[in-house]
C-alpha cells in the first residue's frame, strides 16, 4: 500500500513538474500531506516520491536514448563538482522539498482539520 501510494504520488509530482514547473513539487506534496495526514510516514513517502518523480523522468529519458549520464558528468565538470553531484542533487532537491511540504501538510492539517 505504501509502495503504491509512493508511486502514485511520484506520478502526480511528475505530472505537476511537466505541466507547471518545479514549484509544483511542494504544492503537490503539501496537498498529499494534508489529505493523507493519518497515513504512516507521509513525509518520507513524499520525499521518496519526489526523488522517484524527477529521477524517473531522467531514467525514462535515458531509456529513450538521451545522453543523460554523459551530459550529467560534463555539467558537473563545468560546475567544478564531482560527476555524481547533478544526479544526486536532482534526487535530493525534490525529495527535501516534497518531504518538508508533506510533513507540514500533515502536521498542520492534523491540527486544524482532524476531528477531535
Amino acid at each position, binding site marked *: 500500500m505504501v509502495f503504491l501510494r509512493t508511486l502514485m504520488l511520484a506520478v502526480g509530482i511528475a505530472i505537476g*513538474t*511537466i505541466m507547471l*514547473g*518545479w*514549484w509544483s513539487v*511542494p504544492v503537490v506534496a503539501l496537498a498529499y500531506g494534508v489529505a493523507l*495526514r*493519518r497515513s504512516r510516514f507521509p513525509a518520507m513517502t513524499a520525499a521518496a516520491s519526489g526523488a522517484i518523480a*524527477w529521477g524517473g*523522468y*531522467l531514467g525514462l*529519458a535515458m531509456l529513450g*536514448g*538521451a*545522453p*543523460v549520464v*554523459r*551530459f550529467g*558528468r*560534463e*555539467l*558537473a*565538470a*563545468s*560546475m*567544478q563538482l564531482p560527476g555524481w553531484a*547533478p544526479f544526486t*542533487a*536532482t534526487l535530493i*532537491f*525534490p525529495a*527535501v*522539498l516534497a518531504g*518538508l*511540504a508533506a*510533513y*507540514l501538510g*500533515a*502536521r*498542520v492539517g*492534523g*491540527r486544524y482539520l*482532524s476531528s477531535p
Partner: protein
Amino acid sequence: MRFRPLAILGASLALAGVTYVGRSGAGPLPPLGPFLDPVRGAWGAVAYAALPDSALHGIPGLGAAVEVRYDTRGVPHIFAASEEDAARALGFVVARDRLFQMELQARSGAGTLTELVGAAAVSADSEARHLGMPRGAEQKLAAFPADSRSRRLLEAYAGGVNAYIDGASPAEWPVEYKLLGRRPARWLPLHSLNLYASMGATLALLNGERDRLAARAVVGDLAARALFPVESPIQEPIQPNGSATPRLDVLHLPPPGAQDSAALALLPLLPRGAPPGDDAEVSRHFASNNWAVAPARSRSGHALLAGDPHLSLTLPSIWYEAHLVVPGVLDVYGVTIPGSPGVVIGFTRDVAWSLTNTGADVLDYYRETVDDQASPRRYMLDNAWRDLERREEVYRGKVGQVLRVDTVLYSHRGPLQRLNNEWVSMRWTVNEPSDLVAAFFDAQRATTASQFLDLFARSYFAPAQNVIAADRAGNIAIRSTGHFPLRPEGGDGLAIRDGSTSASDWSGYWPVTSYPQSLNPAQGFLASANQQPIDPQQAPAYLGYDAAYEPWRALQINRLLRANGRVTLDDMRAYQTDPGSVRADWFVTYFRSAASVSLARGNAPAALKAADSLLAAWDRRYTIGNTGALLFETALSGVARRTWDELLPPGDSVRAATPSSGVLFALMADSASVWWDDRRTGDVVEDRDMILAAALASAYETLARQHGAPSSGKWAWGTSATAQVNHLLGLAGFSARDIPVQGGRGTLNPSVQNGAYGSSWRMVVELGPTVRALGTYPGGQSGNPASSRYADRLRFWKDGDLELLIVPVALDSLTPSQVQSRLTLTPAGR
C-alpha cells in the same frame, strides 16, 4: 498526528530556505528549482540533443513557405523564395542551434555582457564602450535607409531569431542560460552590427603605435624605427612581385640609443595592451591562410581554392555551416558567424572565396586640446572650440541593476580616452558607417572571381581582408579589401598626431584600383597568410607595419605550391596541416652554424653537442611525435630573450616590446651587431654565434631538467603543443582540451597562445562543371553540449581530415539517406 509547534516551525523554516535556494540560488549556486527541473532545467538539454525527424514552425513576416533539410552533417539547406525569406530562415535555424552564442558575441560588441554574465564583465564592456563600438554600430544602422535591402535583411534575420525564441519553451533554451539564471534576450538588427564590431575589434585593433613608442622610450627613436619597421624585411607579398623567390631586405639596425624621455612621457597616452611575453615573436591572436591554384597547375584542369581562417578555438565554434538557395538569385554554401545574416566564407556554383586578415593600420590616435582637463566639454580644432559629444554609458547587471555609470566623450574623430591627464582621441575604420551585409550578399551573385572582388569591394569597409576568389572559368584573383586611410603628407600611422588641427585628419581612402591585388598571375597561383600585402617597392602609400604581418606561413604555402605543378584537391587539404616550416629551416641553419663554431672553440658545454645532434636529426617538421620542434622553439625564445635585453626598461623584467621574428632573422645577417651583446653579462661581449649557441645549450638543459632525456618521449611536440578548444564561458566540462595537433609557429597550422587559437574552418573547393568541396571545423553544428553534433567534427579537424560537403542543387536532389531532419517554415500572422 500530534501538534508539535517547534517541529512545525523548524520544518517551515527549512522549507522556506529550500524554496528560496530553489527560486533564487545561493552564492555560486544557480536557482536550483529551475536549474534541476528535469523538464525545463539544465537536463532539458538532453531532451533536445537530437534534431527531430521533422518539424513545422510558423514565422511572422515570411513571404512564402521555406523548406529546410538538415543533411547528415547537421548542415541546414535552406530553400526559400526570396533573399529575405532565406535570411529569416537562417536566423531561425542558427538560433535553434546557437542561441546563447549569438547573444554572448553580440553583447561582447555592444558592451552589455554584464547583463548576461554579471559584474565580472564590467571591464570587457567598458573597453568595448570606450572604443566606441556600440555607438559605431548604432550609427551604422541609422545610416541604412529604411527601405534598403541590407536593413530588410537584418530585420528579416532578427525576425527569424525572434520567431525561434518565441516558439521555444524554456526546456529548449541553451543550458548556459540556466547556469546563469537568465533567459534569452530578443534579437535586434543592431545586434548583428554589434557582432561585426566585435569581429572588427578582434581583427583590426592593432596597436603598433605603442610598440614603437615603448621601444623608443628605451632605446631611442632611430633604433625603435629600425626594430619596428614599416616594411617587413622578408618579402613575398600577396600581390606577386614577379620574383620566384622570397626577398630578404637588408635591415640596418643602429646601436641602441639613449632613453627618450619625450617618448616616455607620451607612452601613457596609448592604451596598454597585453604585456609582451617571453616568446621569440609577437604572439598573434589570429592568422589565416588562403590560396588558389589556376587550372594550368591543377591535375583536374580546374581552379582550386583553399581557405582556413585562424581564430579563437571555441565550443561552440565561431562558425556555423549553412546552404542558402533562392532559385535564380542565390545559391551559396559556406560558413556564417552566428548573428550575421549571410555566408562569410564559402562558394556558389561559380565562385569560391575565402578571407585572411590584412593587418592594415586603420586606427590612429590624436592628442586633443580640451577646455578643461578634469571635465572637458570642448576641444580645439583649427583655433576654434568645438563641442564634445557626451554619451552616458550605463552598465547593468543581470537583473537590471545599475553596476556603473560613466561618460564617453567623442570628437569628430571618435572616442576620447583620458590617459595621464592628457586626452587622446582615436579614429578607427571599424566604427565608420559601412554596410557589410551588402558586401556579402552582393558578392555572392557574382559569376566570376574578379566580379566577386569588385562587388565585395563596393561595400566592404572593415576589418580589411585579403579576399581570394576562384571561378569555374578558371580565373583566380586576390585583393586586399577594406578602407585604407590616406594620411596627411603620405605619413604612416605610427605616430600620435596633433588633434588641434584638421590637417592631421585622414584625407580619404585608397581608391580600389590601388589596393594590393592580382588576377591570373603568371605563376599560376595566389596565396595570402597575413604577410605584407604589397611589396614596398610597388606600394602606393603606407598600409601597415611589419609587426602586424607574418611572413612564414606565406613562404611555406608558396614553397609547396611552386613545388607541385599538378595540385589536387587532396593536396590542398594536406597543405592546410602541413608540418613543414620555412621559419625552422632558416633559423636552424644559423643555430647549427653557431653550434659548430662554439664546439670548434672547444669550451662548449656538453648540452650544446647533444642539442646540435638533435637539431641535425630534426626534419624541421612539427609532427606530433617530433622531438626536435620543442628544442628549437625553446632555443629561439631564448635567443629573443638574450638578444632583445636592451628593450628591458631599467628595473623591469618585462620587455617594452618585442620585434618581429622577421626582424630577428634579418639581424642574423649581421653576426657582430651590438644587439647580440647581452648586457646582463657585463664581462663578455657576445656575438651572434655565442648567443645562439648559449640559447641552444640552455634550451637543451632546461628541457632535460623538465622532461628527462629526449628519448623519454616527453619532448614529443604533441605533448606540449596541444589545442585547447574552450567553451565560450570557459566551462571545463563543455570544453575539449589538450588535443595533440600537428603544427607550430610558422607552419600552416599554427599552434599559438597555448593552443587556444588555430584553424577555425578549413575548406577546399574544386570549381569544375560541378563544384566539389570539402570542409570541417573544430566543433559541431549544435551549441548544445548534450548533442552528438556539439563537437563531432573535432575528430576530423585534429587529424587534418575534411568531410565531403553535400551541395544539393534543389530540394529534391537530396537523397533520403542524406537527410537527417526536415523543417518547414510557414508564414504566420503577428
